[in-house]
């Protein structure tokens, strides 16, 4: 039935290269930076720094991954992260809501924002791109209208638990990131929701024909992304000590790049959580390592563009050759 491939060996090597190339690349970067900065780069402190710096990116990327597996996109996440930070700040500072309740409400508002996008995409049938783009504009407008551009500061000390404090010497935000990643990983790989998300991405019509409620699952995937934005917002404003009305905006493009680069790790073009984390690590290690080497910020951008481009090129060439 299934023919044994003739070029078995040859294919395997190049397949490994594609499948693990991105990870090898990450390891390669580790080696290079360790060689260049032996005393600092591999120090525990610096590794924790790298992890802490990618927390926001990998949380946003993880939520986005779920949406992108379904074949959709979510352009709200940056604006949503900004807005939800303001929601959290306003709740605590303007309304005196306690930290734990603020956290819960923020995540719920994030979920609601996500479900808004989900409804627009799944039920109204607006193309995902423009639906989430315009909802993003809306969110950002509401954000500006409420804050008039002012950041909110003066949040209670305990709010630091999300992004400014340490637990056993490790920044708390890292724990939040790990927990969120694990939850979404389990969701995607061991539950019916996850199966359905992957199935929708693979063939939406077949999935619908199999009796799966595609619309409902789409909405849930946006909800996961929205909750991710909420968690990212909490950590971001806790880390900065202020809620900035535009703090999250710029994360969108990087998160998108992260998910795409992640798609080249492990699964050969399929988006996946572990890959997204690797993608975020690549960007994190690159930025940190280049700063350690005192490479000018400007050249860092070039390096970032090149690395992302190369990562996706390798996979793509591999795929094209297969055809």
């Amino acid at each position, binding site marked *: 039935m299934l023919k044994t491939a003739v070029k078995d060996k040859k294919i395997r090597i190049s397949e490994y290269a594609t499948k693990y190339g991105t990870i090898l690349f990450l390891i390669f970067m580790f080696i290079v930076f360790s060689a260049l900065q032996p005393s600092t780069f591999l120090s525990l402190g610096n590794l924790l720094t790298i992890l802490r710096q990618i927390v926001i990116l990998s949380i946003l990327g993880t939520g986005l991954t779920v949406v992108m597996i379904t074949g959709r996109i979510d352009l709200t996440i940056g604006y949503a992260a900004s807005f939800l930070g303001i929601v959290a700040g306003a709740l605590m500072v303007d309304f005196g809501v306690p930290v734990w309740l603020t956290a819960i409400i923020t995540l719920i508002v994030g979920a609601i924002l996500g479900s808004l996008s989900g409804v627009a995409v799944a039920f109204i049938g607006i193309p995902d791109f423009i639906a989430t783009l315009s909802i993003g504009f809306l969110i950002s407008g509401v954000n500006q209208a409420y804050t008039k551009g002012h950041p909110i500061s003066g949040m209670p000390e305990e709010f630091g638990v999300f992004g400014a404090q340490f637990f056993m010497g490790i920044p708390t935000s890292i724990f939040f990131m790990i927990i969120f990643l694990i939850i979404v990983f389990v969701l995607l790989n061991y*539950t019916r929701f996850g199966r*359905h998300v992957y199935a929708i991405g693979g063939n939406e019509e077949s999935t619908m024909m199999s*009796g799966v409620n595609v619309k409902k699952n789409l909405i849930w995937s946006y909800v996961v992304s929205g909750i991710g934005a909420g968690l990212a917002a909490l950590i971001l404003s806790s880390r900065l000590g202020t809620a900035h009305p535009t703090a999250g905006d710029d994360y969108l493009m990087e998160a998108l790049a992260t998910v795409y680069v992640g798609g080249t790790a492990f699964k050969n073009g399929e988006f996946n959580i572990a890959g997204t984390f690797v993608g975020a690590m690549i960007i994190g290690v690159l930025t940190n390592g280049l700063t350690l080497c005192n490479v000018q910020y400007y050249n860092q951008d070039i390096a970032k563009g090149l690395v992302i481009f190369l990562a996706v090129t390798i996979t793509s060439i591999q795929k094209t050759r297969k055809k």
Partner: protein
Amino acid sequence: MAEQELAVQMVNISKYFGGICAVHNANLTVKKGTIHALLGENGAGKSTLMKMLCGLLKCDEGKVYLFGRESKIKSVMEAQVQKLAIVPQELALVEYFTVAENIYLGREQCNKLKMIDRQLMFEETEKVLRDLKIDLDVRAKVSSLSVSQKQMLVIAKVLSLNAEIIIMDEPTARLGKQEIDDFLKYMKYLRSQGKTIIYISHKLEEIFEICDEITVLRDGEVIATYPVAEITQEQLIKDMVNRNSESLDIRKETKILDEVILQAEHVSCDKMVKDVSFALHKGEILGFYGLVGSGRTEMIRALLGIDPLKSGVVTYKGKQVRFKNIRESMKAGLVLIPEERRKQGLVMNMSIRKNASLTKLKNFSRLGFIDQKKEKESILKSKDNLQLACASIENSAGSLSGGNQQKVVLAKFIDMPVDIYIFDEPTRGIDVGAKSEIYSLIERISGEGASVIIISSEIPEVQSICDRIAIMKEGEVVKILQPDEFRNAETILKYSIGG
């Protein structure tokens, strides 16, 4: 049985797509425990009617009753609850899932922790497939299956739902002869189990073999319903096309010239084509018969440079060639009318005119600018030439019926300097009337001196129009039959199955 219980009643159903009325005031009654055939030309509205029955489309007008109770099914989920299942016309599978995952998609088994129980899923799938006598590896990715295996998988998936009413929309279009026989037997078994089956097919033999009643649709309207015993093939065809059926046997007298225009020697490609050799003569119609997945399409694609050719020698008009892409082969005078009209033949949302001229825009343009008047004239001429039935050539290609779509694809390649026409499944899913029109077109083309290659999975088709028939099996040409050898269908089948 005196008063048989009614499984399905559809009353005064209508459906509109934009300005087009796809189903008009249709009535359908299906008795429980019978196999009920739906018959009609392409675009008659069979699939549309069935989609409304199982909630994939909304009825614009009319009511549906299941077992006497009004049904308001709005989705496949609700249909499944009502024990109603459909094998859709298009293959509906998630390619990168395994066989088991596809079968259980939508009703995955979970353990106490709400986690998916894969082991259980594999075991149950094995059981289901064994019951259905389908031989598939449950852990294989669907993308690695052949087309007919995929079709069997879709059928297995629907049957495993244990539905009471099963709709089959052209289930055998992608199956080989042996598989069809097994499948028809299984249909009879299901009927004996009291299941109700609505069966759509263009293959009249099948319908006469297994069905109890036949409903004929034409232009979205129900023409009549007959018990199968009381109707003849001629009457059915007349109902379908509203004209007397012409004989399909239009085979001309062989007049092959000795001159070889295309010769392939020991051609192989990555996708399973192995050591294929054949020669095509000038003015000849050469048929390629084989079971589905025997590599005919792959072989042609490699010859034309659409897919890479690994080894072998191709000689065209006396010169050795190796086309790098389809543009080169087209320029040289070889054209392919592909097997999947919707996917490969047409741009559905573009007008008929723009579709038909896409291959030859150069003829109407100067400095890159298109002379739209000239273009229009030329396409109007092709339209008459091919007897293309359409209100206007500015309508979208998607608004046409299957047969007429195929004519638009043909229109793309006439009025061009073509030496070899290659038809891949030229009549797949096309109704009887349109079929004979296509045949006479092919006839005409070859009469004008062009050579023709026809890939087909229907024995009567290759028998009736080809001068010689090459039989392919698992990527190899196992035999080339001369006219006196292929009069007997058994011979053709014997070579293609092996032995």
